[in-house]
């Protein structure tokens, strides 16, 4: 359990870090996908099977693929000849370090986080599904509207407008 957690945590952070440093966009996307997968594995170590699999399906299966398609559409894979980062990159690193430092110190010094691990919950997909259809039915409806709006907007924004002004 312990070494497994350590390995997965390292893999998640290392691949995320690599994605932030690499120049080639396809490599970046690959690293981010690896990070998503190891996060899903971390979810499994927390007994959250359903969410773990949903993570793989949606993030690796849909999000990563969509990003790769967008990379190909914008035909800007290698990034040669241009600088990788903004010039005052020290500022960014400073802000990142500040956020990381304050978060980590808050987590370690907080009185809330030192807790015993409760017995594994008997959380089944059935329970999740039931709470989605009862307690959480309103957010579920909002999600439906959200997806409708996103679908409509994405099609509208991404499609080519014909110049003549007529309807396509």
């Amino acid at each position, binding site marked *: 359990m312990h070494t497994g957690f350590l390995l997965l945590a390292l893999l998640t952070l290392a691949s995320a870090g690599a*994605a*932030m440093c690499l120049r080639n966009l396809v490599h970046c996307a690959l690293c981010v996908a690896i990070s998503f997968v190891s996060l899903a594995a971390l*979810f499994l170590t927390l007994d959250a099977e359903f969410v773990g699999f949903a993570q793989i399906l949606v993030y690796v299966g849909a999000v990563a693929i969509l990003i790769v398609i967008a990379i190909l559409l914008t035909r800007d894979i290698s990034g040669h000849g241009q600088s990788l980062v*903004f010039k005052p990159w020290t500022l960014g690193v400073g802000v990142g370090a500040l956020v990381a430092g304050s978060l*980590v110190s808050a987590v370690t010094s907080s009185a809330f986080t030192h807790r015993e691990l*409760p017995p594994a919950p008997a959380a089944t997909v059935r329970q999740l599904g039931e709470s*989605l259809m009862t307690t959480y039915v309103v957010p579920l409806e909002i999600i439906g509207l959200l*997806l409708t709006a996103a679908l409509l907007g994405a099609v509208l924004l991404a499609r080519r407008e014909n110049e003549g002004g007529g309807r396509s």
Partner: protein
Amino acid sequence: MNVGLEHYLVVSALLFALGLLGVIVRRNLLVIYMSLELMLNAANLALVAFSRFNHNLDGQVMVFFIITVAAAEVAVGLALIVALYRKRETAHVEDLTTMKF
């Protein structure tokens, strides 16, 4: 030593900060986009860990919703990037300068 809540939270905090770093320093819009997803994922990890240690399901349900929201956001975000690229032939942040103070 067992793996405790604080270990998961430290990983999640570091992931969040890495994502933020990417958003701030990288120039390419698509990489910024991936960094944003990493930040959302950091929150997901914190939620799943809390859900396990709080011994209730609410956190997992929230993650389920967040994954869906992220998918919708991806669609809109990439459509925006593609729309801009059609107009500008660029996917870099510093070219977003038509409007100035």
